[in-house]
């Protein structure tokens, strides 16, 4: 099962993806997947910023390139990581006595794959057409909505977990 297949499963069969993540003999793999997804988004959606940072580093030094690089990383990772943190807290709280923080964080990482894909799509569209304030608000709402749906599936799986 490839990384992309696991990402696809999270999108179209979220309950199965959550159950699989919860039973995975390799705890932490969903977190690895999320990191890979963020790295992919950084490279394919913020290519121009990375090229600009590389060019600045070549001409003006690494220190001068840091703002461009950190800006690209922050644009990629901030919202998915904030979502993951909040989703972990929500899932572990909602799991009640079945809570297992590490597993709940894994489930939150699976849930974060949906907003990460929305961010990728929105970033791509935004490169072609300026989104504007309304467009960005819609993207944020869609991303959070998609993530929330997956988080609900995560809660259901966590509450059915065998203690």
């Amino acid at each position: 099962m490839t990384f992309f297949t696991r990402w696809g499963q999270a999108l179209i069969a979220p309950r199965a993806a959550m159950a699989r993540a919860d039973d995975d003999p390799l705890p932490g793999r969903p977190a690895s997947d999320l990191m890979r997804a963020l790295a992919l988004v950084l490279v394919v959606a913020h290519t121009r910023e990375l090229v600009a940072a590389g060019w600045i580093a070549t001409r003006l030094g690494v220190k001068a390139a840091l703002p461009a690089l950190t800006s690209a990383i922050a644009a990629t990772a901030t919202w998915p990581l904030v979502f993951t943190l909040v989703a972990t807290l929500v899932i572990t709280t909602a799991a009640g006595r079945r809570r297992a923080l590490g597993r709940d964080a894994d489930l939150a990482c699976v849930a974060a794959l949906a907003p990460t894909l929305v961010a990728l799509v929105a970033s791509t569209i935004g490169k072609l057409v300026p989104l504007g304030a309304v467009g960005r608000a819609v993207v944020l709402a869609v991303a959070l909505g998609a993530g929330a749906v997956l988080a609900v599936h995560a809660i259901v799986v966590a509450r059915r977990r065998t203690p």
Partner: protein
Amino acid sequence: MIGVGSQRAGWAVLAIAALALAINIVWIVSHLDWLRPLESGQVAPPLALPRIGAGGALSAEPVTLEAARGKVVVVEFWATWCGPCLQALPAVDRAARDWGDRVEVLAVNVDDPARARALFDERGWSITLVADAGDAAARYGVHSLPHTVVIDRAGVVRLVVSGRRAGAVEGAVERLLAAP
């Protein structure tokens, strides 16, 4: 158990990623000038920025670099949420009053024209307030704020400063004004 649907969805994600990369590569190839770091000695990229009027309304007639040719120009990129920008702007405004007509100072707001106008009115700053309604920040390589560019009378960039500058901008302008 992984269904065919999941595999197809995975391929779709991969296709979206490939499309995003392709779009970015095409953009990079066609906009190399925009990505080149702005350095002292380069001709300043053209600017056409609308003034921010009452209530954040943008003027139809833009402020251009061409119109300021013959003057030293200071382009100050800033945002209303940017603390260091708000600390730097009073000094820029005071210096602009001292320089008078010899220097054109453009405060380019990159976030919220209405809040920017309200802030300028509240604090009584008189430098020219314009909005980045297009790609000015991208063309000037703005990756952090404040970001200041000093342009000489011939339209050539003489100083690029990101972040705190401790008098560097004022010094550069004074040197340009003192030059024949």
